């Protein structure tokens, strides 16, 4: 089985977020980057599937050369080879186009990724790739087993769970508990440097959405404690100061 896992290169969950250039650019100064946590689940499950029944796992990232340490980590976790499409990932459509263009003739049995990135949290790329390739796209996949050419999966839906079955190939947007994150082991780390990391030029694609400006949420204001017996004061403040009623 030939699996493609698309990974994002995102700021660490503890990174402090700030912007530059009049709030139009993310300030990456001093920021540590990681594999998108949801993508990391997808990758872990892909490696498990490969270990259980053979095949290959290719990781793909749309990004500049700065993302290579993140890609190498994916190789250390157990992917066999990697592709970096050498472009700034401007918006979901642009990224989806790049993935679809690469995948359309590459013969993957399964394309996996996180249900969303954790920087822009669009959660759209899997659906767009499915549309562009004419394949089903399902998200969030929380359990995934493959039997022959059939995939059995589970996802949580409003008020319950649903169990699905469909034929390969398809696109899976994954989240926990599909697998447990894998810590790269020494052998993986040492073999990562000799695994193939192919850099491809981006295909012609344009972004569908242009970013105008970022804004940080307002700083948390002071908290006023009001005595439980003093409801009148509370109502007055909510009306006149907070202006919410």
């Amino acid at each position, binding site marked *: 089985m030939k699996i493609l896992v698309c990974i994002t290169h995102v700021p660490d969950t503890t990174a402090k977020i700030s912007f530059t250039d009049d709030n139009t650019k993310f300030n990456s100064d001093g920021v540590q980057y990681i594999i998108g946590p949801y993508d990391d689940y997808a990758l872990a499950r892909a490696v498990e599937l490969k270990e259980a029944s053979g095949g290959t796992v290719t990781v793909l990232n749309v990004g500049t050369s700065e993302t290579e340490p993140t890609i190498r980590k994916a190789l*250390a976790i157990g992917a066999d080879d990697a592709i970096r499409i050498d472009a700034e990932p401007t918006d979901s459509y642009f990224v989806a186009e790049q993935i679809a263009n690469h995948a359309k003739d590459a013969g993957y049995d399964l394309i996996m990724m996180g249900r969303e990135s954790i920087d822009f949290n669009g959660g759209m790329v899997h659906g767009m790739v499915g549309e562009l390739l004419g394949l089903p796209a399902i998200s969030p996949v929380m359990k995934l087993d493959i039997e022959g050419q059939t995939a059995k999966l589970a996802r949580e839906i409003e008020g319950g769970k649903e169990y699905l079955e469909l034929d390969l190939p398809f696109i899976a947007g994954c989240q926990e508990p599909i697998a447990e994150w894998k810590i*790269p082991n020494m052998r993986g780390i*040492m073999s990562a440097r000799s695994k193939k990391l192919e850099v491809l030029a981006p295909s012609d694609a344009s972004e569908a959405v242009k970013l105008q400006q970022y804004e940080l949420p307002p700083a948390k204001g002071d908290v006023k404690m009001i005595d439980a017996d003093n409801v009148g004061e509370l109502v007055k403040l909510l009306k006149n100061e907070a202006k919410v009623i």
Partner: protein
Amino acid sequence: MSTTEKKFTAKGGAFLIEETPAQAVFTPEEWTEEQKMIAQTCKDFLEQEVYPKLDEIDDVKGNPELMPQLLDKSGELGLLGTSVPEEYEGFGMNFNTSMLVAEVIGAGYSFAVALSAHTGIGTLPILYYGTEDQKKKYLPKLATGEWKASYCLTEPDSGSDANAAKTKAVLTEDKKHYIINGQKMWITNGGFADIFIVFAKIDDDKNLSAFIIEKDFGGVTMNEEEKKMGIKGSSTRQVFFNDCKVPVENLLSERENGFKIAVNILNIGRIKLAASTIGASKGIIANASQYANERKQFGTSIGSFGAIKHKLAEMAARTYASESAAYRAGQNIDDAYEDMVAGGMDKTEAKLKSVEEFAIECAIMKVHGSETLDYVADEGVQTYGGMGFSADAPMDRSYRDARINRIFEGTNEINRMLTIDMLLKRAMKGKLDLMTPAMNVQKELTSIPDFGSDEDDSLFAKEKKVLSNLKKAGLMISGAAVQKFMQKLSHEQEILMNLADMLIEVYAAESALLRTEKLVGIKGEQACEQQINMSRLYLHRAVEIANKAGKEAIFAFAEGDEQRMMLLGLKRFTKIDPMNLKDVRRSIADHVLEKQAYEF
């Protein structure tokens, strides 16, 4: 390292008498992508497997299986085989990479102790002194963690005086076995070890021999877990050998070579311990700075108070010095190894010889790392205030677990004495010319003082002058002490402590300066503002300590004119331009508070 420059070859202990070019030192900023990934794996392991279970781990009686299970898991990741060559199922990493692993795991409390005892004193004796058969039999199992190892040197009546051990080995009549009888104590990993490296005297030998004992040989019993002040999760037992029958092929190295094995393995253990204290210190700095930001008093975060900033800055600067020096020495060991192998030396022998070459630095780092950690832990508790005293906050464990580091792998007192002892021995063997520079200092003492007329205003020119003077102070006082006491200097332990303090501070302060100088060359002054601050702050501390230690030593053995002359010399050699250290500390602390971590 720039290839266009003449290659600088560091020699053990030579930092005292020569200048090291900044380009020649390794800095932790130079880790490769692969090494960073290894460090991340160690960090992920602690976060995933160790930190959520700290209380269970510390309840070693309640959960005796937990620590060996954690070691198994770390073994699956390959963390137990970093130093073991690939032919024995390890990863054959260089020395500095194994230091990096020790550092990151060092923030893992008791788990760090179990892992380092297994990979260090448990595994290395076989790796460095084992026969090919012994290596083939034991190393793969130790590298994967299938078998766990421990090291049995200390006895009730022999601790620092290791050669006084009473454990006996007697050859059987058929000459096929040794029968071992004796009692060992403070045995780390004792509760679950499959392999014991045991030091015992054969018949009436004067010196120790070493044996590899498998638990299944029989005759191995142990006491309950020891109750300890800290590292409570580390299994520590007394181990008894009662007519334990050990095949003759399990003698490690040659008869009576045990003391040498113990000493050489401890050299490695010492510098690795330093690496591990750096990781622990960084962990405390992260916690303390986070707490200082969160805790509000008098309407503001306590991190905004100068008294707290003072602590955070000192914690960071001392850790920076320790880190700079540890990896400088680690790289020296790697370079010496490469040179020795290139010169045709056997790889195993080269591993040992390269560490032995820098044994002085190993002892220095053991002391500096463990005392830095103790300071950092103590001020960590203080930063937390009342919560620092609560067992529900992290400082309690950090504080208790830090303390042992000044005791094991040779007490800091032993290591201080060794530092001077080894330095003098190297001088006597002609490996280190202490005499010429010491004579030059004598000459300088009686000449007109240098008032610093030179106009060199390059970065660190003044600091280098200060360092060079500190070295002179050390040479002046040690030279005089040697002349005075000759062979009896070893009986003057107080003076040896003073001399060691001077040496330790010179090495730490110089290493911090060299690292920063090299970094400035790469990134520019502006990007290295805090590194410059920390190096300068540390240098001031080094001067203070050297001055105090120097005075105490001079008072202890010199009188009259000689005393006056040396005190004048000391004053001259410990001169440093005033600097507003308060502002320097505030700047460092603000950075630490912003990052909420030791991150520069």
